[in-house]
C-alpha cells in the first residue's frame, strides 16, 4: 500500500474541515483563533504535498509565507483578544455582539 498524493490531500481536507467546524460552532475566541491556525496549517500541508509530487520547490516558499502569516495572525489576534477582554471582560463571541467599544 503506497502513500499517494490523495492521502495527503484527504488528510488536509479533513483537518481543514475540522478547523472550519471549530470556527463555526465554537464561541470562545481562543478556540476560533486556534481553528484558523489549524486551517492555515492544513492548507500548507496541501501545498507542500503538491510541491512534493510535482518536484517544484516553489511550494516550499509558499509554505514559508504561510508560516509568517500564522505568526502574524496569532500575534494580532491575541492582541485583539487582550484589548477586547480589557473592555468587555469576556472572551465569548456572544458578548461581543455590538459594533462599538
Amino acid at each position: 500500500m503506497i502513500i499517494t498524493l490523495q492521502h495527503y490531500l484527504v488528510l488536509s481536507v479533513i483537518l481543514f474541515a475540522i478547523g472550519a467546524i471549530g470556527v463555526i460552532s465554537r464561541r470562545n475566541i481562543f478556540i476560533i483563533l486556534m481553528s484558523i491556525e489549524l486551517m492555515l496549517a492544513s492548507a500548507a500541508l496541501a501545498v507542500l504535498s503538491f510541491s512534493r509530487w510535482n518536484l517544484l520547490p516553489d511550494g516550499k516558499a509558499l509554505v514559508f509565507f504561510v508560516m509568517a502569516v500564522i505568526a502574524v495572525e496569532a500575534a494580532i489576534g491575541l492582541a485583539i483578544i487582550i484589548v477586547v477582554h480589557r473592555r468587555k471582560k469576556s472572551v465569548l463571541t456572544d458578548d461581543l455582539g455590538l459594533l462599538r467599544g
Partner: protein
Amino acid sequence: MYQILFYILAVLAVSGAFGMITRKNPIVSVAFLTISMVSIAGLFALLSAPFLAVLQLMISAGAVIVLFVFVIMIVDYRREESRRRVIQFGRVLGSAAVIYLVIVLALSILKPPFIAAPLTGEAFEMPETLGRLLISEFMIPFELTGVLLLSAAVAVILMVKRGEGERDT
C-alpha cells in the same frame, strides 16, 4: 515504515484537531492543538521538507502556541460557554455545509492516477534551494513578509499598550 509513520501522524493530527474543537477548557484545547501541529510538522518532514518541518515546530508548535497559552492564562478563561442565546440551527447548518464541502472536495480529489511520490534529488531537500528561491524569484514577497511582520509587531504593541491614565485590570 513510511506508511506506518504517515498513518500514525495522520491519526494524531486528526485526533488532536478533533480534541481541540471539542474541549471546553481552552488550555486543554491548546494542548490538543500542539499535538496536531507537531504531527503536521512530522508530515512536513515526511514530504521531504525537513527545514520547513523544523520551522513548523519552532513557529507554530513552539512560539505561537506558547503565546496562546500565555494569553489564555492571563485572560480570565474560566467562564464557560453556558449561555445559549444563539440558536443551534446556524451551527448545525454551518457544520453540515462544511461536511458537504468535505465530501465534494474528497470526490474531486479521489481520482486516478494514484501514484507514489517521485524520487527527490539531494537538492530538493536542501534548505539552500528554498533560500535561493526566496531571494531570487520570491524576492518581493519575501521583503513584504518582513514588512508585514514588522507592522504586526508595531500594531500589537500599540494595541496592547496602556495609556497613562488607564487602570491595570
